[in-house]
């Protein structure tokens, strides 16, 4: 096509980082659950979808009540969405995983797929299958570059997404690294049976993992409903698939890996759209995944897996 432009390149990086932040937030839920119980939570995409619905509902209600302070809307929405979505995460663990603890790995996998189908249909029945949309709460942004020519545009919303994502991830890293509960999480991830013997309530740790994953998915959901303004009961599927890819790309089980994987995936999609054809964006994204797994089977930041006995 036409020549390379630095400004366009910068814009594409902004686009990719925004998309990548969302992927990363969802990917953490996959990676945490895998890190601790060694299983993929296939209902996680639906948990994110519920987070987006709650976000949209709360924002709309606050709008009707006349609350127009952005920070207040954001905080209230995040808090409510995390609360509601977190309880869904807890319930999923309670219903689909805990009763099946100790059964062959395929069994909870299938029950999670069941929960995923259930949640999708449950929301569809309750909220209708149609797209629910909302006008942007936060508009505007900064423009850089020569007037009249191509200008780089950085919206307030994109900055907000980056800030919220980074702060929640820092929070999570601190929690896992410093707190008592976080230490228990790490212990469970190392060796669950041993942790149990040493007096750690592993059931509680696993429940916490699901709730934390769901909370981050809720954050992603709220950001998505604010940014794109369109939610339907089926958004969890594609988003879940992409986030799962991001988690595997970064090294499943590794939290920094999920963050990196999300960003890499977002950038890859953005560049594929920009410099190839939009059609090829998923081809490039999944091609990248295959390529990385061929060279590094454990993903970008994954530890070589020692087979647990």
């Amino acid at each position, binding site marked *: 096509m036409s020549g390379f432009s630095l400004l*366009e390149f910068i814009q594409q990086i902004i*686009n*990719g980082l925004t998309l990548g932040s969302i992927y990363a937030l969802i990917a953490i839920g996959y990676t945490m659950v895998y890190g601790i119980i060694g299983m993929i939570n296939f209902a996680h995409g639906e948990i994110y979808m519920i987070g987006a619905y709650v976000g949209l509902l709360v924002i709309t209600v606050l709008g009707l009540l006349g609350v127009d302070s952005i920070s207040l809307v954001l905080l209230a929405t995040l808090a409510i969405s995390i609360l509601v979505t977190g309880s869904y995460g807890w319930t999923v663990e309670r219903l689909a995983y805990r009763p099946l603890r100790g059964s062959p790995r395929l069994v909870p996998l299938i029950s999670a797929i069941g929960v995923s189908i259930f949640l999708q249909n449950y929301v569809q029945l309750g909220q209708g299958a149609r797209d629910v949309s909302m006008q942007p709460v936060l508009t505007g942004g900064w423009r850089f570059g020569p007037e009249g020519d191509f*200008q780089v545009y950085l919206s307030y919303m994109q900055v907000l997404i980056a800030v919220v994502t980074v702060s929640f991830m820092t929070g999570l890293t601190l929690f896992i690294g410093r707190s008592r509960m976080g230490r228990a999480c790490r212990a469970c991830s190392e060796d669950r049976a041993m942790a149990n013997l040493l007096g750690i309530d592993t059931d509680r740790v696993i429940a916490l993992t699901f709730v934390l994953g769901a909370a981050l998915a809720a954050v992603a959901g709220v950001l998505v409903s604010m940014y794109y303004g369109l939610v339907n009961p089926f958004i969890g599927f594609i988003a879940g698939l992409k986030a799962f890819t991001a988690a595997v790309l970064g090294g499943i089980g590794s939290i920094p890996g999920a963050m990196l994987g999300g960003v890499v995936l977002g950038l890859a999609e953005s560049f594929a759209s920009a410099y190839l*054809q*939009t*059609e090829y964006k998923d081809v490039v994204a999944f091609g990248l995944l295959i390529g990385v797994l061929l060279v590094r089977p454990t993903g970008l930041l994954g530890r070589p897996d020692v087979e647990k006995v």
Partner: protein
Amino acid sequence: MNTFSRSVLSAAVGAVILGLGGLAQAADVIKIAVAGPITGPVAQYGDMQMIGAKMAVEQINAKGGVNGKKLEAVLIDDVCEPKQAVAVANQIVNQKIKYVVGHLCSGSTQPASKLYEEEGILMITPAATNPAITQQGYKMVFRTIGTDDQQGPTAGKYIATQIKPKKLAILHDKQQYGEGIAKEVKKTVEAAGMKPVLFEGINKGQTDFSALITKMKKDGVDFVYYGGYHPELGLLLRQSREQGFDAKYMGPEGVGNKDISAIAGPASEGLLVTLPADFSTDPANAELVAAFKAKNQDASGPFVMPSYAAVEIITDAIKGAKTEDPVKLAEYIRKNSFQTPIGKVAFKDNGDLKEFEFVIFAWHADATKTPVK
């Protein structure tokens, strides 16, 4: 063996009873299946189809039905998914319903039409516009709407002669309907000597278009044609405005409904849409439009009147041909013309309408539209 023969016997008795029940019912009711999306992302269009068909059934029944029999509309949901559409078609076959008004999306109409053809069921779609549906050599398939090879050229000609954009981009959603129509537009503008700078597919259900928009902005695109449905276009419009990409957009009738304004808000102002002429403004339909209004329904949706017409054509054919045999009705429909709310219609041999007009409308942020030609 004993239990086996007993169960065979009871099954046989059951079948006889059920069969008789079916006959007894068939004697005084003529069932018409209305198949389309009742749920799913494009259920709005299903609504138009359903209210149109239901109104026709009601009004025909109020006038005494067809040859003394009452009509019954059987609404079936295909979610606009090809797989589900085949399941729905099988359901219709099993229920021994002989007439179908539907389906709605081209992608679901085509696989379903194969079953109807094989089973001798008369199908009239009020909405599926992909040309391929009537190019299969089928005898049982008709439509009361135009095709993309009429709609595409209408849009293409308008772009080439009226808009004359410096740089045209054509996008589509890689679905049978969207890609089909985008290709028609491309063909038409290319015949007029214009070369689109970009012809690309996006994914159905995609939410982030920022990278694509950046690319179009950088390439200096000033007009975008989008073949597909409203959810994706709504987001495209919204994100374009957000990024300060101010090209004008145009789309087919699949984007022309109120939700595009709900999603895109002010960004939907000025969007161009090719739609069937608004039959609800035709003075001949005033009474019918009033009947819709009395039920608090909107008669102006693009598929409402074509649905009404489809039911009317089936019943007029039953009266005219003095038979309920769908195969004979198909022959009758091919040879005769019918007076309907979409005008006097006659069909080509392949089941397409002889004439159908698409009109270009400008869409507004408050979800209203005004014709531009």
